[in-house]
């Protein structure tokens, strides 16, 4: 992924806290609704990239993350932890008034991470984020949020998070009919307690109300709180374990939100290229997430 030359880089002093970002996102959603009604909604993506230099890692934060996700307590930062550190910068972009889609209600469709080498506690991180590739989806509009993490000028981690804004479709469907899901032989299951959303919110800072409680999730149209997609993807990455090596591609597609509390039946198994993982609802035989971890 390379930074498009058309973008102007804005350097922020710190990675923004997500609480404030969501508040601004909610406010800009209101503005967006108003401007859309009067026909002045922004048509393109903000021509800006955000950057924060010199991000330090707090060891206690790392420990809390590792314990929650089942990662070994080493000084290597799990790829999902780097996402947690870097992604608020992308969220801040989505909360800008000139961002064409409303932050609240965005659906995380897929995520692709390339971990080029192990990043260790004590390394100082530079983070950059921008949005690209605004395009139609069968049920709305999708966009990629790209996040890059460098250490002393060396690119070590890249993440591309694809989000869907439902209903604002500005074109026709880009996908054919969905394939029928056939459940594989399970290798395990995640029994997710009702507080998993709050616990991941505590380590990720992502306190989107849809994850926090049944009441706050209902307000946004979900019957119960839902697990963070990146929590489930990171559990799958942890299940792959040390066999992923220090450099790998980690990709995931989210098919359906996991309602909390809930049980995700999983298969995490090696194949010719690396590891494939699937998490599904065993009662209804419907997938929650599928993905891969492939050593580079």
């Amino acid at each position: 992924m390379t930074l498009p030359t058309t973008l102007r880089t804005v350097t922020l002093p710190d990675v923004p806290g997500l609480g404030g970002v969501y508040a601004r996102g909610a406010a800009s959603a209101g503005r967006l609704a108003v401007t859309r009604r009067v026909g002045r909604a922004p048509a393109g993506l903000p021509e800006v990239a955000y950057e924060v230099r010199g991000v330090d890692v707090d060891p206690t934060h790392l420990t809390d993350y590792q314990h929650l996700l089942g990662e070994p307590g080493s000084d290597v930062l799990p790829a999902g932890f780097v996402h947690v550190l870097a992604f608020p910068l992308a969220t801040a972009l989505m909360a800008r008034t000139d961002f064409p889609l409303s932050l609240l209600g965005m659906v995380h469709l897929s995520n692709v991470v390339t971990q080029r080498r192990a990043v260790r506690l004590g390394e100082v991180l530079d983070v950059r984020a921008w949005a690209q590739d605004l395009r139609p989806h069968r049920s709305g509009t999708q966009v990629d949020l790209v996040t890059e993490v460098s250490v002393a000028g060396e690119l070590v981690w890249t993440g591309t998070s694809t989000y869907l804004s439902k209903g604002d479709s500005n074109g026709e469907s880009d996908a054919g009919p969905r394939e029928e899901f056939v459940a594989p032989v399970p290798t395990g299951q995640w029994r997710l307690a009702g507080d998993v959303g709050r616990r991941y919110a505590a380590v990720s800072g992502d306190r989107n109300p849809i994850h926090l409680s049944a009441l706050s999730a209902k307000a946004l149209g979900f019957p119960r709180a839902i697990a963070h997609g990146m929590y489930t993807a990171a559990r799958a990455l942890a299940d792959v374990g040390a066999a992923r090596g220090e450099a790998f591609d980690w990709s995931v597609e989210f098919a359906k939100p996991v309602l909390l509390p809930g049980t995700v039946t999983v298969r995490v198994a090696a194949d010719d290229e690396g590891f494939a993982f699937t998490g599904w609802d065993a009662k209804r035989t419907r997938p929650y997430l599928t993905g891969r971890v492939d050593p580079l």
Partner: protein
Amino acid sequence: MAASKTTTPAAAPRALVLGGNRIPFARAGGKYAHASNQDMLTAALDGLVARYGLQGERIGEVAAGAVLKHSRDFNLTRETVLGSALSAETPAYDLQQACATGLETVVSLSNKIRLGQIESAVAGGVDTTSDAPIAVSDRLRRALLDLSRARSVGQKIAAASKIRPKDLAPATPRTSEPRTGLSMGEHQALTTAQWGITREAQDEIAFASHQNLAAAWAAGFFDDLVTPYRGQSQDGNLRADTSLEKLAGLRPTFGLGLDTPATMTAGNSTPLTDGASTVLLGNDAWATAHGLTPLAVVVDAEAAAVDFVHGVDGLLMAGAFAVPRLLARNGLTLADFDYVEIHEAFASTVLTTLAAWESETFGRERLGLDGAFGTVDRARLNVHGSSLAAGHPFAATGGRIVATISKELHRRRTAEGRPVRALVSICAAGGLGLTAILEAA
């Protein structure tokens, strides 16, 4: 000129099984409901001491363990020794390898005897699911630890304020594999389905286990291997009157969510059990000096582990890999064994292990052999019953098996005057398996 010392070792001593003693195994919540691990291990050890006249004796080392162990029992075995009739100068250590704990104490102490580090030893294991340790939640534990480290009033208030009412709920020991979230039964149900093991075959194993154990009790075989405790004089789980019809009538409990019919029931799975066992070990010189008859030699052992986390092999299949390696090292085949003891975690654990050994594909692709590893003569399998009938107090099972089969090896050797061998295989949580060869002394 100073006399030079020689470091040339004498011929390695043999590690001998000289006897064993256990308390009857009781169903969870039964007669040992309020007995602690230390209570039961002391009862089994004192029974051993009384049986072999070891009062006041300084034993080379005692090793034992429990799978479910309270943190206050950090020195369970030493505390047990101090409370027993053995000399207070007997050293001891705790060991834990899930359900292989008991057998691993036998193996590691035998190795010390073979190295000449000790001349005598007691191996053992104990478990209670009735008196299981209950811990506080991680959040409460962390808050309490932070509170104890806090200096100022402000720090103390900050630490205490992190405690939430629901943090006070106790954390009971988990029965599922930490990395997969599946219980042992659910894991074995996957393996059972993979190998196509039938309900009937499993019920036959369970039936034979009860029949064989009942016959051994009736014949007085356990009279010098078991010390009654707390009013329990026989294994509480034994159902001498069970039948294939009764077993067939039980509803399946594991594998209910799979595509294949569920076949594993409470009858062909081990129940939660309380109990303790011990095994007396020594070299020839120590046995002679104490007037004890060697029963069996601990010949060799092999541990294995499988990657069940990524579904490569079933959770309880490590024994299927350990035994071929163990036998190859010793130049033996399955036909060289008069007895095969495969711990009945579930009836299907025995059957999937046998099926793997009989499979050409498994032999070639997983074991790297030219074909199938071999077939176990069912008449030599678990001849005195095993865990399905006796019950399975996790760490105590190894000691039960070693003491029982060592006595049988000695009896058979005395009767027939030829070498007699037994193979022992115990599967354990975490994808572990431990196997050993015993030979009549």
